[in-house]
């Protein structure tokens, strides 16, 4: 076991490719934990950001600035009574949220957080991702069916129609990005997630800017389709709370309901990571050509540490602005401690970033690069997460027929057109 553990260290490929199951398991656990924490953090952030969009404070009571609110929510959901309606199809009712969750989490097998920071690298990576993530609709349809109730049924029908129609435009947008990967010397494209990012590295351009504005249009199509795919506002028709009360999960409560929420947020991160990988250069730092050279490499390597220090500074500011009252003492201390932890992480990252190039230690260098890769990947995903919240705060909800019209009459023709033009331009250029 130790040899299995040690033999992978220093490897340049993901554990799945290296055939190292022990490290694959470690990565799976890290990603599972990381995504779960991200979902919890996202829960808090969404409530906070949405509240600030809407001139209110959001959670403020449970922990300083409501930081412990997601944990309180999770505990509440866990200890709630587990209700299965008498009329429901019990087995299917039980399986539905699990299907959704499995589909959402299986996708992460091929998400490349770095050139070797992925569980595995498949030569059909992007197909696998699209395929598995679209299995999520199965969970929603079965949930709606099993509930044996009108509102969930309508919600399930809506979501199946919606996801199927937006998948077409989504797939065509993805194909036009994949075409771009074949713009190299030997003209071979790739479907592997890691190779797609490598292709952007080799061609010295993020596919967002490739054949401007073709890459951009495909990206925008994908960015719209992925909101529809994850059932988020303004395409949140399957759970439109003002029309269908709660849509497909009307009859769900407690833990099962929280599984749906977990799956929804995990799916949001998953589709964002597809967009990041295909168009935004995956783990590559911004402007590798414009701002190239060792000096810029060093400056950009400070970013992870500085981000955490910045967050720590915000937390310190919050601590100082806490009311000076005995009632808030524990909260103030807690927020201060949180700031301290963030600051320590930031300092550690900074030390690694500074020490690595000086020491020429192979392990430190690899660690620093890995941290940078993961950092840039996560930051790009975070931008999408913010956009998801922003959409929700800004836009009304589409009506079902309008949603279909946008999907089939606007997005599909545009994505087809982009695909064809990309192919033609690609042939002309090469």
């Amino acid at each position, binding site marked *: 076991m130790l040899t299995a553990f040690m033999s992978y260290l220093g490897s340049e490929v993901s554990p799945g490719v290296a055939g190292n199951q022990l490290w694959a398991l470690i990565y799976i656990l890290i990603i599972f934990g990381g995504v779960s924490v991200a979902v919890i953090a996202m829960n808090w952030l969404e409530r906070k950001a949405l509240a600030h969009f809407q*001139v209110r404070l959001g959670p403020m009571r449970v922990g300083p600035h409501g930081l412990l609110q997601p944990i309180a929510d999770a505990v509440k959901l866990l200890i709630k009574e587990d209700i299965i309606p008498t009329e429901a199809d019990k087995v299917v009712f039980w399986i539905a949220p699990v299907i959704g969750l499995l589909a959402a989490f299986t996708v992460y097998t091929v998400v490349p957080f770095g050139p070797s920071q992925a569980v595995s690298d498949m030569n059909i990576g992007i197909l696998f991702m699209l395929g598995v993530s679209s299995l999520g609709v199965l969970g929603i349809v079965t949930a709606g069916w099993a509930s044996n109730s009108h509102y969930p049924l*309508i919600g399930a029908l809506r979501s199946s129609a919606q996801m199927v129609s937006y998948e077409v435009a989504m797939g065509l947008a993805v194909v036009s990005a994949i075409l771009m990967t074949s713009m190299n010397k030997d003209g071979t494209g790739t479907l592997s997630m890691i190779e797609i990012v490598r292709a952007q590295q080799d061609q010295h351009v993020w596919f967002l800017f490739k054949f401007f504005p073709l890459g951009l249009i495909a990206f925008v199509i994908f960015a719209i389709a992925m909101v529809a795919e994850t059932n988020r506002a303004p395409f*949140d028709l399957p759970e439109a709370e*003002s029309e269908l009360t709660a849509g497909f999960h009307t009859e769900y409560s407690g833990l099962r309901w929280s599984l749906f929420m977990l799956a929804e947020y995990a799916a949001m991160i998953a589709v964002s990571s597809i967009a990041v990988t295909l168009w935004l250069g995956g783990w590559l730092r911004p402007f590798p050509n414009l701002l190239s050279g060792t000096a810029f490499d060093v400056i950009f390597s400070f970013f992870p540490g500085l981000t955490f220090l910045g967050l720590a500074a915000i937390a310190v500011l919050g601590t100082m602005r806490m009311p000076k009252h005995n009632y808030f003492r524990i909260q103030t201390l807690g927020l201060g401690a949180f700031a301290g932890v963030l600051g320590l992480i930031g300092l550690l990252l900074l030390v690694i970033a500074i020490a690595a190039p000086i020491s020429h230690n192979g392990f430190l260098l690899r660690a620093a690069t890995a941290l940078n890769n993961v950092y840039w990947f996560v930051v790009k995903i975070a931008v999408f997460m913010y956009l998801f919240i922003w959409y929700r*705060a*800004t*836009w009304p909800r589409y009506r079902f027929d309008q949603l279909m019209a946008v999907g089939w009459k606007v997005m599909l023709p545009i994505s087809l057109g982009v695909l064809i033009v990309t192919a033609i331009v690609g042939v002309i250029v090469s």
Partner: protein
Amino acid sequence: MNDSNPLSPLDLETPDKTYLDSNELIINMGPQHPATHGVLRVILKLDGEKVLGTECVIGYLHRGVEKIAENRTYTMFNPYVDRMDYVAAVSNGLGYCQAVEKLLNVEAPPRANYIRVILTELNRIASHQLWLGTHALDIGAMTPLFYTFRDREEILKIFEKYCGARLTTHAFRIGGCLYETYAGFEKDVKNFLAFFAPKIGEYEELLTTNRIWLERTRNVGVISGPDAIALGVTGPVLRASGVKWDIRKAQPYANYADFNFEIPIGKNGDTYDRYLVRMEEMRQSARIIEQAVNGIPEGPIMAKVPKVIKPAVGEIYHSIEAPKGELGYFIVSDGSTQPYRVRVRPPSFVNLQALDVMVRGMLVADVVAVIGTLDIVLGEVDR
């Protein structure tokens, strides 16, 4: 049963059909539903998502307000009317007080009329703000709700300072007003107007040219002018269908004749026009308040009204333009201290009749939009 209504109660009571063996789906929207503004129950007959017919079931909030009136003196009944349309309580009170004044042949003094107009128009803005927030929320835009509630708060503060209550104000008495304005009332109102003017722009920025909002509201819930008149629809819903009917202009009460304001009308009678009409109405209300607060005269605020109100035998119908439409009071007096009968003509109740006409053939999502645009308050529908 009436042929035009495909949902006879008899059909609904036959339990032999489940959704498995039928193409038509019967859904209960409400009485517990986030978008029915309280406890309205709409029975929807659906073909997929298409609405084949609707039937409103009301009465879940019935408190017998009209019956209560028969056992209360005229003065005692006054606060009860606030509980009908509780988001526009000031208008309710104005209508009732004026109806009894008409019955008694008394006229409120000019200063009282000015105070009444200012408070009623403030209430109209507050009511429209609440409508805007909930209507937008029904269509899926969350944020306007919080903006409108933030701004509505300023109006409620003025009410609270004036008469101590924020929602069910009981601001007026038969014969005028009980309370003199507090010190700084005029300044507060002027401050509010200055504060409110840019806020309408803020709401409109979020919605008026929003593509999704346009698609969700244009050509949704269309009702033509003649249809609206035939159904007895009043208020902004009628005006959006192109009928220029506003009781403040048509039969001026209080001292609305003294003020310059326009009646905004729409063209298509769809949800978007109703939205625009109400937005413009808020601006016009601000205009009226501005003129009233600048021209408010000195003088008494209460007419000479006997301690015990005992109108002569007779009957009276008086209506005012409440934020939601024509609010009428029909009072029959038998010469005693208590009314023999009070009948309220509530705008929400009458406007709700148009729901079926407006949503038939549309989709489920439109039902929600139309309920929002009709601006019903169940307290007033059920009374």
